[in-house]
């Protein structure tokens, strides 16, 4: 597991056929496709990797170029789709026109337990469906009515989040005042979140705005009924895509820890509110929630630790690093758990590694995955020839270079055109990216997995997840349908 400043990582050797020079040349050629001004803007975002050279750092968290096909979403997407949406026992109102909520309805795979429509609302879409008159006269009154209707029809809802869409911020509505009023009237948290899509440069600001609202409205407002224990932890930044958090919690419980709160995959708002009493925060998606860890560290003195449960190597490293934060009992548990799973993992490797050895993967997704999944591919014998983020910051890239081979490509907010050119030049055996990219690469005859949504599969995290990950990667790369692509005519 990589930690900032950690020197344990060895520099990974160059991939056969790739080198820093070749990569630089490829980047240069790619940039030639742009008009001059755009070329200048894009150049700092692309670099060949050199883990030993700090100068390879790419620029990030900048505005997307107009007119290029970007994979990025918006602040609303970061707030609704990522942070708030997965909290299952609140009603999340997409406040504004109908579209934003409709497109994001059920398309992120943040699974939940609970009874749909009774104690779990993540699978539903609530919207104020703004009409012309709401733009003209403002939507605050409508929002009040919505809060009351929600409270009446969903009495077990533990709160309401109000996720603003673009018009709300532009027409001067005051959702904060409305939310405050309704929270008082309805006696549940009503959290206003000014995550209008035009704010910031990507979904990243949406995460941050959501973090702020959790900080201001939620943290510390509840306490667990039972006394705090020495093994109480919280799991931060796991959104339970395809069941990931269930798989991760299973491992953590097997080593003897109590996961008291899930942020926010299959999350419950009162558990989140009571997180301030745990002993350690384990953070999965650093990008979207490191701020929360810092807040809790500062305000409540809770230490935090990054971990990575993708693939047996990283799981093992992570478990031991986690154990370091606890007593011998946990350390012993960790070794027992590792011993239990080692042969199971070996069997998976024995099955799939021979079929995947040396295969090249090019990654372009968001959050933590462009770096965290590399180890899992490597466990399968694969090499990462390129990786990039939709909405990373420089601290993400700091954590990424050491994980990648020298001479591999690093790209930030890559345009579809760049990805295409890279793929044509490098000929990866697998492209791991999102839905908007999937069919582009498949048309090129390149195996592809959607790695935001696990391509309707999962979990991929934890020991249980690796079995599925390995199967899926093999299935994608070795599908016999690829033999059919070339027509004999």
């Amino acid at each position, binding site marked *: 597991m990589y930690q900032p400043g950690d020197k344990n990582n060895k520099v990974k050797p160059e991939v056969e056929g790739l080198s820093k020079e070749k990569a630089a040349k490829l980047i240069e050629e790619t940039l030639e496709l742009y008009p001059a001004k755009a070329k200048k803007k894009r150049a700092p975002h692309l670099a060949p990797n050199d883990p030993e050279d700090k100068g390879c750092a790419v620029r990030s968290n900048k505005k997307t170029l107009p007119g290029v096909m970007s994979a990025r979403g918006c602040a609303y997407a970061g707030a609704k789709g990522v942070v708030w949406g997965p909290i299952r026992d609140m009603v999340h109102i997409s406040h504004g*026109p109908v579209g934003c909520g409709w497109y994001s309805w059920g398309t992120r795979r943040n699974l939940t337990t609970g009874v749909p429509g009774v104690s779990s609302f993540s699978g539903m879409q609530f919207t104020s469906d703004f009409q012309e008159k709401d733009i003209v006269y403002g939507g605050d009154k409508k929002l009040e009515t919505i809060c009351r209707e929600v409270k009446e029809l969903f009495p077990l809802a533990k709160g309401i989040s109000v996720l603003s869409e673009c018009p709300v911020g*532009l027409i001067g509505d005051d959702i904060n005042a409305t939310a405050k009023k309704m929270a008082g009237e309805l006696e549940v948290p009503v959290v206003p979140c000014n995550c209008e899509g035009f704010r910031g440069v990507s979904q990243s600001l949406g995460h941050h705005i959501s973090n702020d609202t959790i900080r201001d409205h939620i943290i510390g407002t509840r306490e667990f009924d039972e006394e705090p224990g020495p093994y109480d932890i919280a799991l931060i930044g796991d959104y339970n895509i395809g069941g990931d958090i269930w798989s991760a919690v299973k491992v953590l419980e097997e080593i003897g820890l109590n996961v008291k709160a899930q942020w926010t995959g299959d999350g419950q708002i009162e558990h989140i509110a009571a997180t301030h009493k745990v002993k350690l925060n384990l953070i999965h998606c650093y990008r979207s929630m490191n701020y929360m860890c810092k807040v809790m560290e500062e305000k409540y003195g809770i230490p935090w630790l990054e971990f990575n449960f993708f693939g047996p190597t990283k799981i093992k490293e992570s478990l031991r690093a986690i154990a370091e934060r606890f007593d011998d009992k946990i350390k012993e548990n960790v070794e027992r758990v590792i011993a239990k799973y080692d042969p199971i993992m070996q069997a998976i490797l024995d099955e799939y590694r021979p079929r995947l050895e040396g295969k090249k993967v090019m990654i372009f997704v968001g959050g933590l995955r462009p770096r965290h999944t590399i180890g899992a591919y490597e466990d399968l014998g694969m090499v990462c020839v390129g990786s990039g983020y939709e909405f990373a910051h420089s601290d993400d890239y700091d954590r990424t270079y050491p994980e990648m081979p020298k001479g591999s490509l690093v790209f930030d907010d890559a345009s579809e055109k760049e990805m295409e050119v890279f793929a044509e030049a490098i000929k990866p055996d697998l492209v791991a990216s999102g839905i908007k990219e999937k069919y582009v690469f498949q048309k090129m005859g390149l195996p592809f997995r959607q790695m935001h949504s696990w391509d309707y599969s999962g979990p991929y995290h934890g020991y249980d997840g690796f079995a599925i990950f390995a199967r899926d990667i093999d299935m994608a790369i070795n599908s016999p349908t690829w033999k059919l692509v*070339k027509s004999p005519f």
Partner: protein
Amino acid sequence: MSEAVKKVVEITPEEEARVLEWTKSKEYLEKNLAREATVINPAHGCQPVGAQLAAHGFEGSLPFVHGSQGCASYYRSTLNRHFREPAPAVSDAMTEDGAVFGGQNNLFEGLENAYKLYSPKIMPIFTSCMPEIIGDDLTAFIKNARLKGHIPEDFPLPYANTPSFNGTHIHGYDAMLKAILEDLTAGKRVEGACTGKLNLIAGFDACTGNYREYKRLLDAMEVPHTLLADISETFDSPLDGEYQYYPGGTPLAEAAESINGKATISVQKYATASTMKFINQEYGGKHEVLPMPIGVQATDAFLLKVSQLFGKPVPESIKAERGRVVDAMTDAHQYLHNKKFAIFGDPDQLLALAGFLLEMGAKPYHVLCSRASKKFDKEMKALLESSPYGKGCHVWTNKDLWHLRSILLDDPVDMMLGDTHGKFAARETGTPLIRIGFPIIDRVNVHRYPIIGYQGALNLLTWTANKFLDIKDDTCEDQWFEMMR
């Protein structure tokens, strides 16, 4: 001293069970129907995704969103998921400063970059919320873009205002299509000239199979035709190792010439109202708005109209096809007779599906449109009243799929027809859902099978009848489990 922090309270299974039961009650239905402001699980998207669909229907077309990049990502991914195909489109990535300065510079830069990077032949521009609210003047912006050389003078840039807070995806489709046709046909009208062709407008239709079927039928009729906004290749292109940005689409020259067509038919009244208004004003030839040809009678009407307009007989091959479908409908009638259906989706499709059900002797028992006009309500009710099978059926306009859940728990049906978004109501009410419409993101290939024309009637019939038979076999007791059905 501050007040004590509240304890975490867990919801008990008993509470869940009690409330679940309550959500199935008559009381809940009434409360639910009384909702004034909250929309829950709507069956409609916003204008721009419709605009993008229309924009994809033309040769070399790169849809261009004037607005935030997040909007474009949503439209694109919705189309990706439905078609399982690429949906290349760009945005000019407006951000906060746009609120202050407007989006003109974004548009300039966006046009320049997109033109260079993706070599389109046309970029239909449409708006998401932000520029609509701040009042960007697209007419001026585009003029300036040309003047300042951000885009060649003659490069086609049709544009449409598609505010998300007004209408639904069908209205965005309409606005964009009208804008494209306006742009491409400008100055092309030649008095007395006639291409001899039929212009066919499918409307907001995300079934590529339907487009292919229109073309097959018109080919069989030997009627030369131009499908305006033909997405059939765009969203159903071969996988052959080469990625093409712009497969298919209506050729631009053909679209331009459409103004001199012999006739123009739209098969979606509600989704092409402004387009057809424009066509009525500007186009040569005759103009007709017909119902979507779903079912035998609507297909008859469509072919008859084409036949009349072009003086071409309906060929024997199509007559035989008709006869075969009538045969299939007769054979399968008893499996659909008096079955109750809930249908939801867009107005034109609902009217056409209801027509098909009525001619099969089935009941369009609950018809739900989550955003529709009074005109639609009236037209649908008139259709239902025209048939004994429409008696006692219900029309629900401006009601959503959470309403539908309550409605179906109160007054159930045998089957639902609609898009994937209905699957929760289907599950929670124990109703089988046959997927029709947009989007379908949890099954494969459905959009590749036509539901229009005689072949489409056969498909609808097969899906529904065999689903009923599946259910019978799956749920009957041993003593009723039989070889024949």
